[in-house]
């Protein structure tokens, strides 16, 4: 190869170091092709089988290659490295070429690597299809044959060949002109057999089991040097030892696993070789179908079992959404806000009591507008093809940081660190006057929605999954029901005065309670910053985020203690503006953090598991072991509670270990299209989602249907689900 020579020569000249340049040294003296631009290690001939071709019939050609000693070419799967020989044809119109038939290869180990190929000599066969109508006496075909030939080093070679093929005269049979060569070449091809095979995959091994006839079994029992050449790349480790045994009527090949997912293939193909008792070499082509997606998952949309809460009707979905909304009130970041709001009702003066209903309505409106806004955006984005689901807003670091800052300011307010004077942000739970309260109430409603969205509370997942499969009007109704549920407790208090009388009497305790309620908010801030850290994966960004917290507190403090005299007043004002400026810069910078997809487990879930990827899950599904899938996110509290209480408990972990459970954790903290797809396939648009798929029934070769577990887990629920399969 010219370019190799030149480049090698150049690098020798430029760099001035000794190149191992073995070409001349290793070439056999009688090599006829030792000229530049001509292959030096492989002599290649294009040989036709017959002296003439017949229209409409195949015409077989041999590519006959002889290698210089110590050099080899490659099989169709070259193994760990190398390249199979290929042909590029230039054919007359209407002619077609088949793929190359490669004879059974030999093993070519090289250090820790294993290659499959041919030393000394090989004859590759290929057929050309002659069209029904041919013109003239003959056809000229051109072939560019390219191959890689290696010893310790590799050299790509190529050659051009031309064949003039005459057409058979009327009534004349084509004469075989190279019968011995073609006979030998066909004998070297692996034999086709009809062995029924099953593939099993476990951890680092692949086991192939073949049922064969008694005659073959008898032959195999006395056979030696059995070996399997995989024709597909990346499935088995070529260099690893193979354990091959024959027992009863079954041939078992135990092969070590490489990393490519079996689900990439429809079947595993290869060539099995052995040396028969009489010393003759035998080789057979075998093919094992790979059970792709099991029926359980192929029909995932309809396979949700009775244990899950799938809404079958629109009204059921509405009811579940409403109920889920009520439960949202108890979320740690929502509860303080709402309890303050509720307590403010107690303190209303008699005169203001009559405005309570209006407050209730405005609060509900705030919730609804915010909910429908987010839902509308979600529906629009999904329609635009975005792979997102419920809680998607928390997959963006800026949103998380802003939420943390917002909750922090609310916490400071509850702690009594500062009071809002009036207007947009009325003091939470303070002086709800008719004049200032309405805007504040509306804002509280929106705030409640914003802080409530991260976790799809129990009963809500199914309803919202249903919602998003419906036309926009229906799905918005479900979201409205959810918002109504969130608003319901407060709305009820506003509309039913007798309920208000059941609340404790106002007094000094209220201030203590108010201050105490700051702590769930601070806890929420800590949690949101933790989520932020996971999202940005950058400690410096986290540090900046924390600096923002200090700046906020500092700004608030300065605002409270503005001196009256100059120049201090101006200085403090300038400082405040600077602090606000820096905080805003931090928030803006957070938008440039590039949250990558979570391919693995970003945060610890507290129990042994594998990160969910489509490939790893499909690979496990193709195996026999039972599978448990936990779809989670750092910002999902329900997920964290389930992981803590049920999944990482001793009882569940022991059960998982006993069943050899393949536990997958999908971390949806960041955007992850594969997980969104999986959620969608199981009728969900958010986390948590728990799926259990029982072990494969070895008799039928099938897996039972996937079970969707409830969104609130206990040890008992998990154990029951596993016991049913």
């Amino acid at each position, binding site marked *: *190869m010219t*370019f*190799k020579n030149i*480049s*090698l020569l150049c*690098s020798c000249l*430029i*760099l001035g*170091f000794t*190149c*191992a340049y073995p070409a001349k040294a290793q070439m056999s003296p009688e090599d006829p092709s030792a000229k530049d631009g001509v292959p030096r290690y492989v002599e290649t001939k294009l040989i036709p089988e017959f002296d003439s071709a017949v229209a409409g019939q195949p015409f077989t050609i041999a590519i006959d290659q002889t290698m210089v000693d110590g050099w080899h070419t490659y099989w169709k799967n070259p193994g*760990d*490295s*190398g*390249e199979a020989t*290929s042909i590029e044809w230039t054919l007359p119109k209407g002619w077609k070429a088949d793929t190359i038939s490669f004879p059974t290869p030999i093993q070519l180990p*090289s*250090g*820790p*690597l294993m*290659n499959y190929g041919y030393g000394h000599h090989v004859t590759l066969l290929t057929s050309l299809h002659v069209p029904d109508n041919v013109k003239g006496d003959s056809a000229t075909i051109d072939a560019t044959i*390219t191959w*890689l030939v290696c010893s*310790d*080093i*590799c*050299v*790509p070679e190529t050659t051009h060949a031309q064949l003039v093929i005459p057409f058979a005269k009327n009534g004349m049979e084509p004469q075989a002109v190279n019968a011995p060569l073609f006979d030998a070449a066909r004998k070297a091809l692996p034999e086709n057999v009809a062995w029924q095979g099953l593939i099993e995959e476990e951890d680092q091994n692949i086991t192939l089991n073949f049922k064969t006839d008694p005659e073959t079994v008898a032959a195999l029992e006395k056979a030696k040097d059995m070996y399997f050449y995989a024709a597909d*790349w*990346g499935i088995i*480790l070529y260099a690893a030892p193979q354990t091959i045994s024959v027992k009863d009527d079954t041939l078992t090949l135990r092969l070590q696993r*490489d*990393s*490519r*997912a079996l689900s990439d293939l429809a079947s595993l193909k290869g060539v099995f070789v052995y040396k028969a008792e009489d010393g003759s070499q035998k080789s057979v082509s075998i093919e094992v179908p790979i059970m792709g997606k099991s029926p359980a998952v192929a029909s995932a949309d309809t396979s949700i079992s009775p244990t899950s809460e799938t809404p079958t009707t629109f009204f059921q979905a509405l009811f579940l959404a409403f109920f889920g909304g009520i439960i949202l009130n108890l979320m740690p970041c929502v509860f303080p806000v709402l309890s303050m709001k509720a307590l403010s009702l107690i303190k209303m003066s008699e005169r203001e009591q009559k405005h309570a209903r209006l407050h209730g309505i405005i609060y509900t409106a705030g919730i609804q507008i915010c909910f429908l806004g987010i839902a509308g955006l979600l529906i629009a984005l999904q329609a635009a093809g975005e792979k997102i689901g419920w809680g998607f807003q928390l997959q963006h670091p800026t949103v998380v940081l802003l939420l943390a800052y917002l909750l922090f300011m609310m916490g400071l307010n509850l702690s009594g660190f500062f009071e809002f004077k009036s207007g947009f942000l009325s003091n939470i739970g303070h002086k709800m006057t008719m004049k200032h309260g309405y805007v504040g109430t509306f804002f509280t409603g929106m705030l409640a929605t914003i802080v409530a969205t991260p976790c799809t509370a129990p009963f809500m997942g199914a309803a919202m999954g249903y919602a998003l499969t419906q036309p926009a009007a229906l799905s918005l109704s479900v979201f409205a029901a959810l918002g109504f549920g969130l608003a319901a407790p407060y709305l009820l208090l506003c509309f039913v005065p007798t309920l208000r009388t059941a609340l404790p009497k106002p007094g000094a305790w209220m201030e203590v309670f108010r201050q105490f309620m700051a702590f769930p908010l601070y806890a929420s801030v800590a949690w949101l910053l*933790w989520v932020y*850290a996971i999202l940005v*994966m*950058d*400690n*410096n960004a*986290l*540090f900046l985020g924390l600096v923002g917290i200090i700046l906020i507190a500092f700004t608030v403090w300065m605002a409270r203690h503005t001196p009256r005299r100059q120049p201090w007043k101006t200085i403090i004002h300038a400082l405040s503006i600077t602090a606000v400026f820096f905080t805003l810069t931090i928030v803006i910078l957070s938008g440039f953090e*590039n*949250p*990558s*997809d979570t*391919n*693995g*487990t*970003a*945060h*610890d879930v507290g129990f042994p598991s594998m*990160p969910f*990827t489509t*490939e790893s899950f499909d690979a496990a599904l193709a195996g026999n072991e039972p599978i448990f899938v936990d779809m989670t996110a750092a910002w999902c509290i329900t997920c964290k509670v389930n992981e803590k209480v049920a999944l990482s408990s001793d009882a569940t972990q022991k059960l998982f270990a006993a069943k050899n459970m393949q536990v997958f954790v999908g971390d949806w903290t*960041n*955007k992850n*299209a*594969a997980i969104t797809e999986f959620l969608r396939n199981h009728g969900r648009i958010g986390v948590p989602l728990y799926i259990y798929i029982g072990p494969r029934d070895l008799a039928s070769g099938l897996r039972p249907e996937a079970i969707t577990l409830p969104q609130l887990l206990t040890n008992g629920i998990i154990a029951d689900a596993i016991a049913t399969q």
Partner: protein
Amino acid sequence: MKTLLALALGTFTFCASTLAFAATTKTPTIGQPAPQFEATDTQGIQVKLSDLKGKTVVLEWTNNECPFVRKHYDSNNMQTLQQEATADGVVWISIVSSAKGKEGNVTPQEANAITSAEKAHPTYKILDASGDIGHLYSTKTTPHMFVIDKMGNLAYAGAIDDKADADQKSVTGAKNYIQAALQDLKDGKPVATPQTNPYGCGVKY
């Protein structure tokens, strides 16, 4: 500061680092933590994969005498790729796993001379004559490419492109898997083609 913050973060950082150290010797799997290694590069700089967390890392196995490597360097394909990637903040590590006395084995000086003669742009070039790093990644060919995402998980393993030959002409029009994988990671998407069959000369262990 980093250490202090890590301490303050407690469990999270601890878990993340445990994950990173839990790398096993078996064939690395897509989506799993990439095997950890530590080495001195040809300029004498200490390179530790775990320190590169937060950055996308490309590992390129090379052997400057292998015709498949020559295809990508003589066509300027590899250099362009290196330049684009490193300009984008990607850490590019070229690794030579040729054993002493085998094709492609070079001294650090020779390696640096090759880098400048080829106008290559790796962030680091590591000589792995013992083959340790190569075995850690079950590297088979030169070139054999790996992409590690910002969290330290293996995002891509396999060939540089879809034209498994040593012909320079095939670089034009080839689908470059590394370019595609880096773009996917940049867009925050999962790598569409996370694994392909590496092609080239065998690593000269």
